[in-house]
């Protein structure tokens, strides 16, 4: 059985494309300039794993990493 996923946005890479926020609003939010960061500590609730992978696969800046714990 696979473990829990954790998403993280690299603030040095994010340019505010907001693809992650649009595809997985449960996992990402935007700051006052529109740059994204993970919600809370980035833990992906059960059932949202596909959305996490989708967000990662659509970030043009390759700013999202997903760790499996």
């Amino acid at each position, binding site marked *: 059985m696979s473990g829990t996923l954790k998403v993280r946005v690299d603030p040095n890479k994010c*340019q*505010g*494309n*907001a693809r992650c926020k649009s595809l997985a609003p449960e996992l990402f939010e935007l700051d006052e*300039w*529109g740059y994204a960061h993970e919600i809370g500590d980035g833990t992906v609730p059960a059932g949202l794993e596909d959305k996490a992978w*989708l967000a990662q*696969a*659509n970030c*043009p800046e390759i700013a999202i990493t997903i760790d499996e714990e």
Partner: protein
Amino acid sequence: MSSPAPVTDWVHDFDHTDPTWTENPYPIWDELRTKCPVAHTNRFLGVYLPTTYEAVKEICYDTDHFSSRRVVVRSVRPEPPPPAPPITSDPPEHKRAKQILLPLFMPDEVKKLEPRVRAICNDLIDGFINDKSCDAAARYTKYIPIRAVTNMFGIPETDGDLFIKWIHEILELGLHDDTVVMKAVQEMVAYFTVHIEARKKHPTDDLISTLMNARTEDGQPLTDMHVQGALRLLLVASIDTTWSAIGSSLWHLAKTPADRARLIAEPELLPTAIEEFLRAFSPASSGREVMKETTVSGCPMKPGNMVLLAFPAANRDPTIFPDADKVIIDRKENRHIAFGVGIHRCVGAHLARMEMFIAIEEWLKRIPDFRLDPSRPTTWSEGSLRGPRQLPLLLGKE
């Protein structure tokens, strides 16, 4: 002036204004990608053309070797024109200028304009829906971004044709003649001066007033020149690009009944389809100036040359996008760079996406059946922007 010689060698002598490129650039880029990932031409005083996803991205991220002080590839290279921050800014000034604009174009801010854009689309459709045919580029796709931006700026919608004239002069006619560009810029400065001065007496709640009231990080107001430059950027960058993107999307749907039917049956697919239209028909290429000697994808690049940053070519790179030449409206993995990457990522991206979404959604609701008019050709813009400038459609069932 005489027309430039037709291109016979795209690797060593490309020309992004050649009629073959204008008609259909995709086979040219496919050839270049396999033969030479960074092509070069002596035309336009020396320009490199990266066509792979990797090379385009690398140049975007390398602000040390590549400057944005010039972003349009032209055959004249006078002193850089008056700046239009942040698109013409390099680090460290860039960040300050961009942070002023970013909050105004956040997804939630842009969403507030949605009802207005929906009304604009329906008003335009009302104008031709009872005809059996229409030129969608002239009567629909052009006026959506014009009316959206004039609403944001708080300026008259009826000035739209003036904006189209300036943009045509700056991005097409002015490619070979600097006096045309300088005259257009002067006219724009005079135009916006009137609107800025009026707001000094009577502040409004539109984007022009917001920029006039903006403060930099150290609490300073923007100079009139900065406000002017930002307004020129927003005007020039928001109209032809979105006009092109909506037009190319409709062009595709006009000749692809299966995709039309699917988007009508599965409207929840539209946001994914819009991203695919942005990938497959990316409207804009940007430019950079090489400042220091460097090498990209094995190609030595020398200062004094420009780079034509062909985002549309990068987005057709088959090593990144399987079936890159096919439009797959439910493509799941889509790291397209239609809006650029790195610090110059298009500030208006969310506005453009919203306009595209509403424009296609409303069109399909009211005109589910349409096709290209076989008796009249679709024509495409010339230069660094690609989109239909005449898009004759037949409306209704065959």
